[in-house]
């Protein structure tokens, strides 16, 4: 199948910190691509570059056949984004939120109403569409957030930790929804810290650490490479590739300023 995302030597530096270090990979059209990594590894920065929110320092990437730097508007017309933070206005209702984002994406009021009804119904949020978002639980907000990202019926959907902080029921619902969506032809880029979720959903997986891709392939391919384990899981692959040391983006940034404090596996600062 054709590549819908092509990334070549993509790099992002924030002053002296190299957040993403010359990474290259491809995502095939119609697959669920798990993009995994510890905190501060460069996942979100990569997603932000691919969604045109952050400008790369060097390298290139094509999303849906368009260059992320030279043709950002074309890229934006083909993607949906469910970011780490929920992109909704608390004082507006789901209908008003969807109208706003739909109009910015060039849809007419009628088109938005039609699509909003469809997605809200599928995500079981239809009866809440006229109440202010601020009164909803995180799970309800996330379902509307996903409806918002799907309003333009994108070819590629970026999901940055979509089940973070949700109860098992909503998590199950969203996972099922992702699979259904993918069957309809939507390419999904999924970042998550839940290895079981990644294993269950992803066709292929990339693991990024310290800004570099350290593993890339199908879950089965990666599992075969794990040494000293009879029936390894994706979590085993992840830990073998990224180590047991606890990482934290804030900790890392702080360490850059304050010196070499490192947190060990036992959560002790040394």
């Amino acid at each position, binding site marked *: 199948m054709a590549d819908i995302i092509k990334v070549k030597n993509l790099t992002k530096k924030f002053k002296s910190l190299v957040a993403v270090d010359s990474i290259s990979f491809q995502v095939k059209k119609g697959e669920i691509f798990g993009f995994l990594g510890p905190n501060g590894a460069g996942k979100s920065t990569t997603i932000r570059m691919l*969604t*045109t*929110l*952050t*400008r790369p320092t060097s390298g290139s990437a094509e999303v849906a056949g368009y260059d992320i730097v030279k043709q950002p*508007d*074309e890229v*934006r*017309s083909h*993607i949906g*984004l469910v*970011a*780490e*933070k*929920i*992109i*909704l*206005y608390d*004082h*507006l209702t789901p209908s*008003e939120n969807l109208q*706003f*984002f739909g*109009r*910015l*994406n*060039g849809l007419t009021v009628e088109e938005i109403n039609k699509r909003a009804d469809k997605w809200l119904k599928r995500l079981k949020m239809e009866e809440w569409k006229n109440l*202010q978002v601020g009164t909803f639980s995180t799970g309800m907000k996330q379902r509307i957030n996903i409806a*918002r990202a799907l309003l333009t019926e994108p070819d590629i959907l970026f999901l940055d930790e979509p089940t973070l902080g949700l109860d098992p029921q909503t998590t199950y619902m969203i996972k099922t929804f992702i699979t259904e969506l993918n069957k309809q032809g939507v390419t999904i880029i999924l970042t998550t810290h839940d290895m079981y979720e990644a294993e269950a959903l992803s066709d292929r997986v990339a693991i990024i650490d310290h800004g570099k891709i350290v593993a890339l392939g199908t879950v089965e391919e990666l599992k075969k490479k794990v040494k000293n384990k009879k029936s390894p899981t994706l979590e085993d692959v992840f830990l073998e590739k990224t180590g047991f040391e606890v990482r934290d983006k804030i900790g890392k940034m702080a360490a850059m300023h304050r010196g070499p404090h490192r947190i060990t596996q036992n959560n002790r600062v040394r």
Partner: protein
Amino acid sequence: MKILNDLCQIAKKDLLEFSRDRIRLATFIIMPIFMMLLTGYIFPNQNSLKNIPIGIANQNSEYGNQLVEAISNLELTANTKAFLVKNYSDIDAIKEAVKKQEINGGVYIPNNFSELIKTNQQAEVTIIEDQANPQISAVTSQVLSQVVNGFSQAIATQKAKAILVNKIPAGNQNPNLAASIIQPILTKIEGLFPGDTTYFEFVAPGIIAMIVMTAVLTGLAASISREKEQGTLDGILVSPISRLAIILGKALSQSIRGLIQGAIVMLLAVFLFGVHINGSIILVVLLLLLGVFSFVGLGILVSAIASEQETATQLLFMFQFPMLFLSGAFFPIQQMPKFMQIISRLIPLRYEIDALRKVIVLGAGVSAVRTELLVLIIFGAATLAIAVPLFKKMITR
């Protein structure tokens, strides 16, 4: 046309969101009213001198009693006495009462007051000031001095008349001769419009300009920073719209809010505090719009630099605080030291206030505020030219 549609969508969303936030809405309406009421009622002017408690120690009878009567009956506004007079035995008792803040000043009339006048010597009246309240004290002392001077002139005129009766035959006497000897020159004060200008009329254009500036500067920076922090800005940025539409949409909603606040203040000034807009109301609105234009660039600049709401607020405070004092909003620029007057020329708010004051108080037309209009346009265009490209760069860094 798409850019126009997009910026309107953003402005509409911002205003809808704002109208649902009860706390922000309440602050938005109450703040200008509160500010206007405070300045309107607190800053004293002669006309607002009402029922000020003062002490009088009158140790004399005849002329002393007449002076006390003149002070006690003084009315600067209809049917309201300017002073609430309390009687004391001597000057020390008045000073003691001022110390206790029972009164805001006093008048001491010594026991030889009438005798000195009658024997053609200079009599003396002492006015005691309340230095703890410099503003009240300045106005009170000024009014008391005027009463004493008036009283003094009346006596002088009587005396002159008595002397002149013996010198010039009655038939040749000019009825105003005595008065013209005592006060040969009369000062006639004529404004461009009838009536006195109060301090409030001086301050009102400043407050209007300041409110509009605050709404645009603080509001714009806070609105963009808030969306950055909450992550909703990413939702807008990931849509295929021009970055310029985002900035202009935000600026439009903040400008509408600024103008609404400006209108609230203006209506209060006119209907509650009797400020007359002597010039063209269209020119006032034009000046307010131009004020908005001149501050938008600065607001965008701060939003581009500050990544957090708190940083934006602090940065703006740094700009706004000196502006309040150096723009001439509350204090006349002419009374400031020379170097401060030079600095004030660099502040766009000064030109906005100057122009509003000229139009509202003096009824000036476009030709009289040409320089101010030009400065505001140049400042707005220059800051926008720097801010817009910087904002575009900063939001996708």
